[in-house]
């Protein structure tokens, strides 16, 4: 699997199975989200336009009943965890947080 990101157009393409030349139809799920399928209806690729504005996760199965779903991502960019003044050591973590539910 390959993921291409075009900085100039801010678009992302996820190659799920093979190259784009085998794509037989494209389904527009949203204005910014396109799914490419082969002739058997198997997902081939996912195109995300304005990718930086649409942080989404994808879940898909690889069997015959292939289905694809997408989920918004919650990004909690915590600046810095705070420790209380009484503690000798500070445990506040400077760590970004990414979470989502399937």
């Amino acid at each position: 699997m390959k993921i291409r990101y075009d900085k100039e157009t801010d678009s992302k393409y996820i190659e799920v199975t093979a190259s784009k030349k085998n794509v037989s139809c494209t389904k527009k799920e949203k204005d910014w989200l396109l799914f490419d399928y082969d002739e058997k209806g198997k997902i081939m690729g996912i195109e995300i336009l304005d990718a930086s504005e649409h942080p989404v996760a994808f879940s898909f199965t690889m069997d015959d009943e292939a289905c694809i779903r997408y989920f918004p991502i919650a990004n909690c960019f915590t600046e810095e965890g705070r420790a209380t003044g009484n503690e000798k050591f500070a445990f506040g973590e400077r760590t970004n947080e990414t979470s989502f539910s399937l």
Partner: protein
Amino acid sequence: MTSIKKVDQHPPTAQFLWGLLCSLSSIDQERNNVSLFNIVEEIGIPQEIFKQEGKKVIPFVFEIVMLLRRIVSSTVDDREITTDIEVALVDPEEKELKKIIAPVKFQKGIQRNRLRIRFNTLDITVPGNYGFRISVKNSEGFLKHVGTIPLEVKPRPFK
């Protein structure tokens, strides 16, 4: 005798520090620490379920929690970067049952990203050792395997 070390020309853009499976995780919003509850390594499933052929979807609420660190180059580089991560559920026969792809963002100056994915179901086929294979995108756009979180699925008699 000198050994020649093979250098990876296109390493993954983030390092997998640790990852595990638990039934619940919670973030202390004041300190930004994570607490993990009921770390799961094994799940018992009524053996009758395995009599059905093919893939089965069982209701099992769990979370995958992992910590990633951005790959720091030789120069000081703390720009904001976004990479992609793949989590693939693989059954004991090495068949991929499910794939999840998600973007992971490292803010300017922040080295680590904690990723939490909540599942409501688990796809299974046969009893045995399953794995959640973690891959991170490299500089060429290809996904590179960086680690696996194991889960043993055991049949148990139905009471």
